[in-house]
């Protein structure tokens, strides 16, 4: 979506084309990476005409289940370290393979009109405010718990959702007055919500690791893609979507 991305992409294309990468790989990526990875994959293919990339998006834990059950995969990009750890523990990914390529922090999302007048993290704890968060079992939820502990504010959410998308859905529909989501989600949602940053969010930084899976049959292409994502082009595309530096 950002035409300016083509310039660094072009340089990288010229550098990798020489390596003559050939083959097709399958990338399993967290659903929140859909737009960025779709773009990156397209540019990677342009840069390496003989390489093709198939993308499979789902929740990180879904993907781990699939990989554990023998899904044909070359690269795994997780939305949190815990899921990546499951693969390294299970020996499906070399322990030193994962590379952190992006980070994400929480932001308060409110409907554009901000009906509850939210300004700070502490406002979320007011009883009349309908707050939605992620359940502690999922990354965005555990991040919220971390922030709560750091600030001493205890939230009484009306719902503990199982994914960021669900939190965002409640806010965009106006059902909830506020929700805790990632910066990237606020940006992706466009006009539908307004993001309210809060300083305490730095207490819980979420890291996205990416790694080549051991069983990969095109390890060279896979590694090239990992490098591409964690390289300049990747950084640029990810940052324009709101992700932070690892």
């Amino acid at each position, binding site marked *: 979506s950002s035409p300016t991305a083509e310039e660094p992409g072009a340089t990288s294309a010229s550098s990798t084309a020489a390596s003559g990468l050939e083959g097709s790989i399958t990338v399993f990526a967290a659903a929140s990476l859909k737009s960025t990875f779709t773009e990156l994959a397209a540019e990677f293919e342009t840069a390496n005409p003989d390489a093709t990339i198939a993308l499979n998006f789902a*929740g990180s*834990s879904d993907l*781990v*289940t699939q990989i*554990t059950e023998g899904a044909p995969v070359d690269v795994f990009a997780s939305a949190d370290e815990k899921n990546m750890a499951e693969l390294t523990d299970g020996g499906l990914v070399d322990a030193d393979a994962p590379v952190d390529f992006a980070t994400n922090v929480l932001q308060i999302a409110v409907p554009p009109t901000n009906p509850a007048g939210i300004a700070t993290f502490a406002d979320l704890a007011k009883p009349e405010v*309908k707050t*939605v968060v992620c*359940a502690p*079992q*999922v990354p965005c939820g555990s991040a919220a718990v971390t922030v709560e502990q750091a600030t001493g504010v205890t939230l009484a*959410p*009306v*719902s*503990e*959702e*199982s994914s960021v998308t*669900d939190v965002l*859905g*409640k806010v965009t*529909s*106006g*059902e909830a007055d506020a929700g805790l989501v990632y910066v990237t989600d606020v940006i992706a949602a466009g006009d539908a919500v307004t993001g309210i940053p809060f300083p305490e969010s730095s207490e819980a930084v979420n890291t996205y690791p990416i790694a080549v899976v051991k069983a990969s049959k095109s390890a060279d292409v896979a590694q090239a893609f990992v490098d591409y994502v964690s390289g300049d082009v990747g950084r640029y595309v990810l940052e324009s979507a709101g992700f932070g530096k690892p």
Partner: protein
Amino acid sequence: MPGRRSSSYAGIPGWVVIVAVIGAAFVVLPLAAMILRVNWAEFIPLITSESSVAALLLSLRTSVAATALCIVLGIPMAVVLARAEFWGQKVLRSLVLLPLVLPPVVGGIALLYTFGRRGLLGQSFEMLGVTIAFSTTAVVLAQTFVALPFLVLSLEGALRTVGTRYEAVGATLGARPTTVLRRITMPLVLPALISGAVLSFARALGEFGATLTFAGSLQGVTRTLPLEIYLQRETDPDAAVALSLVLVIVAVVVVGLAHQAGEFTGFRRGASS
């Protein structure tokens, strides 16, 4: 009248049995695979944990309520679709299927658009001081929405199959339409009504996407067993599978009881009519 006494006639071609066994295996094997993976040592603590029990009880309560709502709304809908003739009937019949084809999550969004705080009807409800979202009512509504087509369609099919012959006889004996419905039509389609209700109950029990989207997920209020399972999966997929087993057992027990009750009425269509 051979059929009357033909309870012993049941000519089933051999190949049919073979294919049926393959079909059954297709459904039962995944269950077996699931059971094989269950870590039984963890199983008991897992299913007796507070959150699991709360989710199970909530699921049962809401599914029963949703099934009741399905019966109340579904019987009239099936009767009208099967017996009346009106313009737009076919379109309506297709529309009733909608919740089936809509990905549940989208169904939840549509419900939000309707009953949500800023939804079509929700705004009026809000003014009356009734808030549906994030309440157990929302769970029941979501489950009813996805489960209703099952009841309506299986009942409508049965109504068409039994035809109107007995109803006509009832009318000539002086029974008003309501009496005919209560004393003739419904008893005649009772097996279909029971399987429709069972289908609805099962669908309501397994409902996940629409509930998540429309009602949220709060322990004891809106977090039903499927939602609990989904969350479990984030931390431990095997635990989620184990918990699903509880859902399966509940379903099998309830379904078994329902069919038992159906047969207890002492009336088996196959043998009579």
